[in-house]
């Protein structure tokens, strides 16, 4: 039999090289899968990874990469702070929905006023919505020691039900002929979050995502809170001796990640998605967890990981349409990325040894 033995000093080189290796392995295994499906693997991989960046219509798809990566990065940066400190907010998807609902509700309450302050108000309401939703598991943990993983995850399903009831009830477009869905926020000037420069895909959510990367970088490198977060994750006991309050850290990390997820939802509902609808949430909050780990919980890493993840979505859709690949094979391809990352991670932190027979 084999057993795993923790490496005393994991290699610094492999810490950075494993994500790249995981991508390469994904390409190889994915190519094999596409070949088994009877498609040209080289063409499939090229369509996914190359065409959106440098192909004929790259002028369109590059912008779409930003649109897709923006919310992923914004959410993942928030999550990474908590993950570093051992605080597991798994419910960003719910906070994302609540941000969108709060923000949209704040704006629609003022419909059809024409005022430049409406959008900033919605942004604040969106962050607040996400923050409140994250405070529920945070307070339950600090007061009653409940497990924030379960509570935050289950609140996603509560948020999903609230979203559906909003789309069918309170926020339904009164001029929508009885169909579910709110007014289109991207078509009302006061609430719209359009492309800042046409064709680039840059909207306020993408700007916020970049800003969050910079802010998180500074926080972790230069600020005492960043130090406390890192300390709490690496040596919880030492952190307590150093005067770090675990409860305060839970409230802060959950609050920041919830607010950022709420912002992502708000920017999405006012921009690319346009309206509160039953199917508004498309799993950004869950995918962001993968992005956070793929990016090594490092802000710059998350930026790159978010763009890579967006590439697999945009390129994957491209391959699916133009090469006739089944949607499930694209999802399997994305799943391989996480699988290989975890696998090579394991091997960079542990080594495999044949297990000796222990004497009784």
């Amino acid at each position: 039999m084999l057993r795993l033995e923790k490496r005393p000093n994991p290699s610094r080189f492999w810490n950075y090289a494993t994500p790249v290796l995981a991508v390469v392995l994904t390409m190889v295994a994915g190519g094999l899968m596409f070949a088994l499906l009877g498609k040209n693997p080289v063409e499939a991989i090229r369509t996914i990874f190359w065409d959106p960046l440098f192909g004929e219509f790259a002028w369109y798809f590059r912008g779409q990469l930003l649109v897709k990566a923006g919310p992923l990065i914004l959410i993942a940066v928030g999550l990474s702070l908590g993950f570093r400190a051992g605080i597991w907010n798994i419910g960003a998807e719910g906070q994302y929905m609540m941000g969108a609902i709060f923000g949209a509700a704040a704006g629609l309450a003022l419909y059809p006023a024409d005022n430049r302050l409406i959008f900033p108000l919605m942004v604040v309401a969106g962050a607040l919505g996400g923050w409140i939703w994250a405070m529920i598991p945070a307070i339950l943990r600090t007061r009653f020691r409940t497990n924030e993983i379960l509570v935050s995850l289950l609140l996603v399903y509560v948020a999903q039900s609230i979203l559906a009831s909003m789309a069918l009830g309170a926020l339904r477009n009164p001029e929508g002929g009885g169909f579910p869905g709110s007014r289109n926020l991207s078509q009302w000037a006061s609430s719209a979050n359009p492309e800042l420069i046409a064709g680039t895909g840059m909207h306020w959510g993408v700007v916020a995502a970049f800003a969050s990367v910079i802010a998180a970088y500074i926080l972790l490198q230069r600020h005492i809170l960043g130090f406390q977060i890192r300390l709490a994750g690496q040596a919880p006991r030492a952190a307590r001796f150093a005067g770090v309050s675990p409860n305060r850290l839970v409230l802060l990390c959950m609050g920041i990640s919830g607010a950022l997820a709420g912002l992502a939802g708000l920017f999405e509902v006012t921009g690319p998605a346009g309206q509160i609808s039953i199917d508004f949430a498309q799993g950004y909050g869950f995918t962001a967890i993968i992005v956070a780990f793929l990016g090594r919980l490092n802000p710059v890493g998350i930026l790159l990981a978010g763009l890579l993840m967006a590439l697999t979505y945009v390129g994957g859709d491209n391959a699916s349409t133009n090469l006739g690949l089944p949607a499930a094979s694209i999802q399997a391809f994305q799943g391989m990325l996480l699988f290989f990352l975890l696998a090579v991670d394991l091997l960079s932190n542990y080594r495999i040894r044949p297990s000796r027979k222990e004497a009784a």
Partner: protein
Amino acid sequence: MDRRTLLASAASGLALSLAGGRVAMAQAKDKVKVGFVYVGPIGDGGWSFQHNEGRLAVEKEFGDRVETIYQESVPEGSDAERVLTQMALAGCDIIFTTSFGYMDATNNVAAKFPNVKFEHCTGFKREHPNVATYNARFYEGRAVCGTIAGLMTKSNKIGYIGSYPIPEVIQGINSSFIHARKVNPDVSISVVWAYTWFDPAKEADAAKALIEQGVDVILAHTDSTAPLAEAAKTPGVVGFGQASDMANYKPSPRVSSIIDNWAPYYVKRVGMVLDGTWESTDAWEGIGGGEVLIGEITEAVPAEVKAKAMEVHDAIGAGTYHPFTGPLNKQDGSVWLAEGETAADADLLGMNFYVEGISGEIPK
């Protein structure tokens, strides 16, 4: 069309739409590329499966003169806009968007590609001359199933699994109930909302809840076979195939089915693009136009019940009978349709009330 001229036409399309959205002259084509956007996986039955059957019928009809591409499981929202743009850039001449949630995305992308035709299923917005809408009168099929349900129930309780409380679903509930009541004055209907179009586990739970209430005929407006599988566990409970025929459950519990048949419409519209005669329309066909089919009524149904159901079917198909014909009252007892009056399409498209006799409220 090669890719270079395509790019040029996309660019000039943008320029044109900026210049005020002139419409390109209609002209016949030798070959067209057709795109389909599906909301779910094609799978082995249900809504997207039926649209894909329509795509295959187009390929069969026109052979080398068409090329079709499709994308499964496209989320409604920003992704839809990107996928539509991607299809237009890939050279599609006509694109069918097969779910309600693609409405705004379809119109937004249509504005940028005035030379590409867009057909949106179940929506009502046609903001540009290159956008058409289409739907099917499913409530006509419900009238036939409702008739069977009313005659087949022994407990006088029929159940309905609703997806979302939107007009199309409410039409189906009302139509089923009206026709069940017509042949069985003692019948009552229980509605359970699943809040999903496709979720076998939730649909099974809904069916179970209905059966526990004593329901012995189940109608569903959700796509999976789970309600039939659930019905199969209890002797005496029957149901209907929904969207697809669901023939695996024949002869019982599946006693008949209501089938979405998009093939005639797709073949007709793609043909119009080939001929250069396509124009923006709002199509809403039913049994008469062949878009709604009633699947084989099995031997589990007595012959006189089958005859009664086919009578309703044939009258609707011939256009001599409208499923919503007065006298009909709303749930609160107020008059909706007077004796002999038939419902206007506009009323149906915004239907947000139950007819008299149905208890319970539509969730708001």
